[in-house]
């Protein structure tokens, strides 16, 4: 831990440009690894040639363009969205344990998506489903965040206990809903739903990437605007209002952006937990808690983490694949416990 702290201290003393460069370099390295590693191992040269459309082997080009590139981009977008959403809710609720999956928002998005998997083919014209899923998931997460934040807000302060308890209730309800949908579904739909509740970026297609991109990029573009307000909210809601921020408007817009990112991510990849918890925490440790740094670096860090997790997911038991949600849960669970252990006193109070 002390080594990590010292390492973190050194990183914070680096100039901003160097830190940004380092983070982007890491992301590019993760992307390169994700494109090169797999059932058909490719060299970096092969990857670059294929990306520039000069592949010597048509099969290699197909592997890159049809399989690995959409998958890498989707994993990156999902990771960026979840981490950004985590950082934003934590700022909004002034608490480091507000993760989209812990407070039930992912589950809310999941139920709607599962319902679309089962009934979508009947209700919607063919071809609409890939675009309806992010929208439906967005609506689901928006509803949950509205309910949860209303329950947890007592006299203009967010109670963490209430936030988590509301999350437990909604998670239970959503799980029951998903269970019911599994019961109603046919074999193929059931496999889809089950695999998908564990989280995976295995089904990546270009259509999904295009449907997902605006859900993640829009909140990312708004991040600098939110950063100042979230910094002020760190002092408290009343204090932020004294500094001239329209707190209610900021909260509404932040919830909107948050629901868009989580809904988009969940609709294509299922429930991938803990990314929103782990990444912002690490970024805060290394770069500090100011949101103008925290939000973009969380997005970059989330993308890097999920791309790497996906590389592990599809190589560790090759030729089979582990659901990526299992991997993030194995990283995030202990991390969450450690976080609780360190802040025990605070939560007991």
């Amino acid at each position, binding site marked *: 831990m002390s080594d990590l702290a010292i390492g973190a201290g050194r990183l914070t003393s680096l100039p901003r440009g160097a830190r940004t460069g380092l983070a982007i370099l890491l992301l590019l390295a993760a992307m390169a690894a994700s494109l090169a590693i797999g059932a058909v191992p490719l060299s970096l040269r092969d990857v670059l040639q294929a990306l520039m459309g000069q592949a010597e082997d048509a099969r290699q080009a197909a592997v890159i363009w049809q399989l690995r590139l959409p998958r890498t981009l989707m994993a990156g977008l999902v990771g960026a969205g979840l981490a950004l959403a985590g950082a934003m809710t934590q700022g909004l609720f002034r608490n480091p344990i507000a993760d989209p999956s812990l407070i039930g928002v992912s589950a809310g998005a999941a139920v709607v998506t599962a319902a679309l998997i089962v009934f979508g083919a009947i209700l919607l014209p063919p071809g609409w489903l890939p675009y309806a899923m992010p929208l439906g998931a967005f609506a689901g997460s928006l509803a949950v965040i509205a309910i949860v934040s209303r329950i947890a807000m007592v006299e203009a302060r967010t109670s963490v206990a209430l936030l988590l308890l509301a999350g437990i209730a909604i998670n239970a309800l959503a799980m029951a809903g998903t269970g019911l949908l599994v019961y109603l579904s046919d074999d193929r739909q059931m496999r889809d739903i089950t695999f998908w509740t564990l989280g995976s970026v295995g089904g990546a297609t270009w259509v999904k990437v295009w449907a997902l991109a605006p859900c993640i990029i829009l909140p990312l573009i708004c991040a600098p605007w939110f950063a100042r307000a979230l910094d002020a909210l760190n002092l408290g809601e009343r204090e932020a209002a*004294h*500094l*001239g921020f329209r707190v209610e408007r900021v909260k509404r817009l932040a919830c909107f952006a948050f629901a868009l990112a989580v809904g988009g991510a969940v609709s294509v990849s299922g429930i991938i937990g803990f990314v929103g918890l782990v990444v912002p925490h690490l970024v805060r440790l290394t770069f*500090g*808690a100011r949101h103008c740094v925290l939000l973009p670096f969380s997005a970059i860090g989330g993308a890097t983490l999920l791309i790497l997790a996906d590389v592990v997911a599809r190589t560790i038991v090759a030729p089979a694949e582990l659901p990526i949600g299992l991997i993030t849960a194995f990283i995030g669970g202990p991390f969450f416990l450690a976080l609780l252990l360190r802040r025990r006193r605070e939560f007991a109070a």
Partner: protein
Amino acid sequence: MMRLTAIAVERGRRRIVDGVSLDVAPGRLLAIVGPNGAGKTTLLAAMAGDLRPAGGTVMLDDRDLHRWSPLDLARRRAVMPQAARMGFSLPVRDVVALGRSPFERSHTRCENAAAVARAIHAADVGHLVNRSYETLSGGEQQRVQLARAVAQLDLERAGAKPMLLLDEPTANLDLAHQHAVLLLARNLAKQGVAVVAILHDLGLAFTYADQVVALQGGRAVAQGAPPEVLTPTLLRDVFQVDGLVVSGHLVVQGPLAA
């Protein structure tokens, strides 16, 4: 210039503030005193624009406080809260710099940095700037919050002078810093700031304030210059203590003998 006219604030069915009229003039230090539950903090919240009075008006420059946009208001008045815990710890320098948020667009980066440096110096937190807010003692945190509020005062530009509202600014401070904070408040008043402070220590109010308003049960039972308000009679009736003035200082002798 802020003018409160017969304002009333209700919480549920209870009237917390009841018909208080008050002028807050630039260049003056106004102390709000009163026993627990007299409505001091609620009155200050009404002056800050946090809540809308159920009756009466709060006017700032002849304009109702609620017709001001949050940003315009933030450029005119700063509030130091009683106690502020932060969600995530920041270095002290960054906390103070948050006080400049309303001026990020209107002032240059250089002007803002200078205002932060001045506020850090004024609140005597220079030795803490690189510390993490979380690691400070209660009194040190309070002084950092004071520095943040002072940084929010726009003193350089000509025009209407800002207001500074202090909610028990001396609560957690040692004696030397209690006096230092009120000296700073006096000093800011001399530069034209209208300062309003809730004070529990009547001795400090007597020594430093230009004007005192005494609240009891939500009503202003007396207001005026300190010697006119903080009389032995008022001390007995409102605060249930005996006190007298000795060579220009108010001395509270202890609770009333039963």
